């Protein structure tokens, strides 16, 4: 994780644009970040900020408009179809809705073995042994679960099955997109703990995308905050939550509700809602809702810069630590 080692996953100036009628929506507007081996990078932001699109563009489910994605120094962007498929075995994605992301007509054993069958890496007993190992690793009993269909499982169990499928090819990087948002609190905790255990066991590197700030803090080593297609702030989790420098991060954190009646309810609540990504504000994209916006914010795009060790912020007037 130290600065000398090369990052395992590197995203460089990534942009993703969609056409909406005649208009172009820039869902991701030039973001760059690195994720180091064994690290979990949390990606938070409100709906429409581009965090999910970023995740999908990394695994190229969504085609990036420009920019580069490198995994272990190898470019993922620009690969042909066959090469991309091979490369995808080292980077896997887990989605929000565990039930609809599993084929309802296949048995759990076959769902988990699907990547093996595609690559024909293993057959017969070896394949069965790998599937058993994966199901056990995610806390399912292979003897009970293996021959059943996804509909016989609860949401939390389905999410375990999709984790098993994602891990069966022993990927290096796992992109988790809102993977616990659809689950109940008690089940969510089970899955979050499971993710932590699996990360340690298999030496995984994670990009954990979610809207829930508490969930992201819990699993992440570093957290990146997104707003309207750009990164606002990237910092080690505890730093970011203790000393947020970007006004948007501050606003987000102040709006979090905590299960604690002693916590004061006064908020720096943001007024209004994010502007449309079709016609984003000039300069800093947050300036239209920012309590401390000044003229410079309209004319000049703030670049992500380091204000403390490993703490980067894209703001002309960040709150600096005392």
């Amino acid at each position, binding site marked *: 994780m130290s600065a000398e080692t090369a990052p395992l996953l590197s995203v460089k100036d990534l942009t993703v644009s969609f056409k909406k009628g005649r208009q172009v929506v820039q869902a991701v507007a030039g973001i760059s970040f690195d994720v180091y081996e064994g690290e979990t990078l949390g990606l938070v932001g409100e709906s429409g900020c581009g965090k999910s699109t970023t995740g999908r563009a990394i695994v190229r489910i969504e085609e990036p408009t420009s920019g580069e994605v490198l995994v272990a120094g190898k470019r993922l962007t620009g690969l042909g179809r066959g090469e991309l498929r091979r490369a995808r075995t080292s980077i896997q994605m887990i989605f929000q809705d565990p039930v609809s992301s599993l084929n309802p007509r296949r048995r759990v054993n076959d769902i988990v073995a699907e990547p093996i069958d595609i690559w024909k890496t293993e057959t017969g007993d070896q394949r069965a042994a790998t599937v058993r190992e994966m199901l056990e690793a995610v806390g399912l009993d292979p003897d009970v679960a293996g021959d059943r269909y996804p509909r016989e499982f609860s949401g939390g169990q389905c999410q375990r099955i999709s984790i098993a499928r994602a891990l069966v090819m022993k990927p290096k990087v796992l992109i988790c997109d809102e993977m616990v948002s659809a689950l109940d*609190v008690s089940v969510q905790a*089970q899955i*979050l703990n499971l993710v932590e255990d699996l990360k340690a066991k298999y030496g995984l590197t994670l990009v954990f995308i979610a809207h829930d700030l508490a969930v992201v*803090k819990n699993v*992440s*080593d570093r957290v990146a905050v997104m707003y309207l297609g750009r990164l606002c702030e990237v910092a080690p989790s505890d730093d970011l939550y203790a000393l947020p420098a970007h006004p948007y991060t501050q606003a987000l954190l102040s709006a979090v509700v905590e299960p*604690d009646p002693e916590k004061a309810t006064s*908020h720096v609540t943001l007024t209004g*809602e994010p502007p449309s990504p079709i016609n984003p504000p000039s300069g800093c994209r947050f300036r239209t809702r920012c309590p401390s916006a000044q003229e410079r914010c309209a004319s000049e795009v703030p670049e992500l810069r380091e204000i403390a060790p490993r703490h980067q912020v894209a703001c002309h007037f960040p709150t600096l630590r005392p």
Partner: protein
Amino acid sequence: MSNEQSSIAFPSTEELSGPLLRVKDLRTTFSTPRGSLTAVDGVSFELGRGETLGIVGESGSGKTVLARSVMGLLPRSNTTQTGSILFEETEIVGAQEATLREIWGAKIAMVFQDPMTSLNPVVRIQRQITESLRLHTSMDRAEAKATAISLLSQVGIPSPAERVRAYPFQLSGGMRQRVTIAIALACSPRLLLADEPTTGLDVTVQAQILDLLSSLQSARQMAVILVTHDLGVVATRTDRIAVMYAGHIVEMASTKRLFASMAMPYTQALLRSTPRISQPSHTRLIAIDGRPPDLINPPSGCAFAPRCTYATDQCRSERPPLRTAPEDPTHLFACWNPLQTGNAGSITTAKGEN
């Protein structure tokens, strides 16, 4: 704005005596192809005028069914209800639909979870607000429209005079939820049932909506039942909290008391499994193993016993009744081995650990 408000009758202080709502041994059962499912199983509570009660539970705990039962809103074709729900002077259980329709919208109103599905997509905002005004008050078309605009501005919608002509799809998610709140408030109900009103919303919008609800609630002396899965949502915005599990209220206390000295292991487990921003990152969550019981074949003893770390044989065989805490008669819990007494010393509350 002030003259529109004067046309709506606020309850005067003389009326504000005795509880607004008395629910007694309410049982709501659905008939399903697999058998009958008791979603709400013997629930009793009272709600004072202007009081805010949080109902917390996970999916399948019966919290939404309870809210809809209180209103008498469940379809009768596959539902049976026993017990009693006394709203002011009216018995809701078994009431004629015509009787209920006079209360619905006028005295009890509901805010639903997802404004995308709870607003009619092909009807303008204006009519969705004015139709209950026209029904329950003597307002004419113009007065109802003026009131609708005033309501939209009260719930914080910019340029309400134009927005009132909009269709729901022309508004953002947060704005839509404000509209459903405006609809619910139209006839100044005495009781507002808010069922997961902020679940699909972003954190900043959630904060805005919750603040809006509590300011409207205190301004209008309206009782609120806030149904949610999120202990954070109810922690600072309710007077009392009822925790539900498998169709039962398993613990109920004033909000302060509940968080300070919870007695029910389930409440504690729920709290401990919730990640918080005040905890350092990578704090190990204390998850609850297993999953809620099947309500078609519920376990014989305490419904939480199979997942409870403190469960004893008694827990598994005998259902614990709801009883009061010795130090605080308003604190109720249903547990044979409550945290404070049976496990005192060995167990501290989650708060104490921080």
